[in-house]
């Protein structure tokens, strides 16, 4: 059972990582706390539901839904957020929070309030046996997806030209702009890409928990906790933070079920006290 619970923790961790990596990337480059990240994730789940119903295939929706989410995020960035980069952070927060409310009500108006269940892909509905205990095949997919995304992100940031430009812009945007990098374009790319990641999160979770109003708010708080524990702006920090909180949630549920709601936040506060920049955050920040 310890192993099963460890794997459960891993799956939670990888899902959190999908969200936290986008969140931390956007913060690292744009210096914007994307409050609407959870709502984009929810949108991803609902799009997955609709595309799956329309096309009859989960795999099609897994590919398409995150792209739709990225498009929506692109519109938000191009027409609204972009106007506010030069303003104080409060304006960006207000704008993104208003999008939380807008997306929330729009999903309710469009999909209704009842939970929308997405069937799992036929090949992954069953379970495999691990040390005599059944474990869902689909959950294994999620566990595999996390490191894959982390690796892809790492390679994209360090191995491609645009990736290196993004890193440069995140280190010093004035200097990056001065040497001729198209910083507004890089901002758009990062925001849209971060949103795409949250869309993947939504698409992956839809067959497990279904799509329902309020799911965005539930995950965004935990994702923030992951980002803070890992260090704002650090991809590997987000990975580590997600692993830590995922396993804490898994084993906390077994060992101290009464404290489970509180535990992740206790860890977050502890990190705040002893290492405010987060586990892998750059100091001084």
């Amino acid at each position, binding site marked *: 059972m310890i192993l099963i619970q460890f794997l459960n923790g891993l799956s939670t961790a990888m899902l959190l990582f999908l969200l936290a990596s986008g969140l931390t990337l956007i913060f690292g480059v744009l210096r914007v706390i994307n409050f609407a990240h959870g709502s984009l994730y929810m949108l991803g789940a609902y799009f997955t539901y609709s595309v799956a119903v329309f096309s009859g295939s989960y795999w099609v929706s897994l590919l398409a839904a995150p792209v739709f989410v990225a498009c929506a995020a692109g519109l938000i960035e191009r027409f609204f957020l972009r106007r506010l980069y030069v303003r104080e952070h409060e304006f960006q927060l207000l704008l993104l929070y208003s999008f939380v409310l807008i997306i929330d009500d729009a999903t309710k108006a469009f999909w209704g309030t009842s939970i929308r*269940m997405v069937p799992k892909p036929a090949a992954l509905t069953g379970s495999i046996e691990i040390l005599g205990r*059944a*474990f*869902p095949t689909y*959950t294994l997919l999620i566990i595999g997806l996390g490191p894959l995304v982390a690796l892809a992100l790492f390679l994209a940031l360090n191995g491609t030209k645009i990736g290196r430009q993004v890193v440069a812009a995140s280190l010093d945007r004035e200097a990056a702009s001065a040497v001729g990098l198209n910083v507004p374009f890089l901002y758009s790319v990062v925001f849209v890409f971060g949103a795409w990641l949250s869309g993947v999160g939504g698409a992956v979770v839809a067959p*497990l*928990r279904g799509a*329902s109003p*309020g799911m965005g708010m539930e995950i965004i708080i935990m994702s923030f906790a992951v980002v803070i524990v890992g260090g704002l702006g650090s991809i590997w920090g987000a990975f580590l933070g997600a692993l830590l909180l995922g396993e804490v949630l898994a084993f906390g549920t077994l060992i101290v079920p009464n404290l489970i709601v509180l535990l992740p936040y206790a860890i977050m506060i502890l990190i705040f006290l002893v290492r405010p920049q987060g586990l892998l955050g750059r100091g001084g920040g």
Partner: protein
Amino acid sequence: MRAVAIAICLVLVCAVTVFAAGQEPVKIGVMYALSGPLGVLGTDQAKVSKIAADQINKEGGILGRPVELLIRDDEASPSTAARVARKLVLEDKVNFIVGANGSPAGMSVAEVASRFKTLYLSAGGAMTELMTGKNCNRYTFRINHSGAQFYRADATYVASTFPDVKTVAGINPDYSYGHEMWDGFTSELKKKKPDVQVVPGVFVPMAEKDYTNYIASVVDKKPDLVYSVLWSGSGVAFVKQAKPYGMFDKSRFFLAAAALTTAMTTLGNDMVRMWGSEPEDWQMDNPMNKRMVTDWMKESGGKPPHAYMGHSYATLFILKQVIERVKSFDTEKIIAGLEGGTFDTPWGKMTIRKGDHQAMGKIFIGEAMPNPKYQFWTLSNPKVIPAEDVSLPMSETGCVMK
């Protein structure tokens, strides 16, 4: 000539006014959770209330007055429910309030009802202590079941139907209702089967949609039966997630207290073998039930009514019956008519106990089975237990009417 025309017009206008005054609508505040996690239930309960009001109005209303529903969102939250109920009473001047989802919200409405002496008929909150237990009051009636009626019926059924059950585990929502149901069920079961082993209950926070971390510890105990009151969307999400962990291969799953129909109609291919207890059975052969189900299925596109929808519907018809019986809209006279009164409902005749204002409905318990007539599973040949047989005796309710 002109004077005559004016005079005729005046008379007509007056006549219309007088006529309209005679037809002044009965205002009924209808409160359900239209948003949030319980929005699934509340929205449909509000819709079926509208169907009931339409049917009543088609038949000439209540004592000739048309019914006007003021449908409000209680968000299943006690503070919202209190605010909405006060507004309905003080500003909208409703004659009655019906509904509310979840016991905490229902309790808030019951307090407002008692304070402003406005009649409130609950069709949602099931916690025993609230409304018809220690906190009962003269202006509140519970048309739906109390939690105790359910867990006592569940324990009776499990003890007599599954003699081989040795170990019982539970997974339930972590708020007072979930604890009441689990504690009640296990202590009743122990009275009937003293040798039964009870595994410590697992409780999941209300807002949690991810059950993965809770499943392994239940599966590990290898229980013969898992008892749960995870209702509405939570029950659905739980079954879906627990299935590939093999929970339902080795254990019987009992989804109690009005959670089963939502699971049967929503789970589709993920449906598993399960049993459960329901407050109503939409397949019943009863004219009032058939009328409700026909009109509802037309609106929902073939989805059957679930959970307490029949109770939402019945509540308005009970109001109609009692008002026409006492021939008055006076609250005190209506209370006298409700206390101990027997009414037609979609599940047959139902009496409301005078002592604690608890309705004595029926409990339908059985196994979910695929049904060739529908695309979803249905309750197959359920055992019908009258609430009279399983209710707490008046002396144990703690209710002192005030």
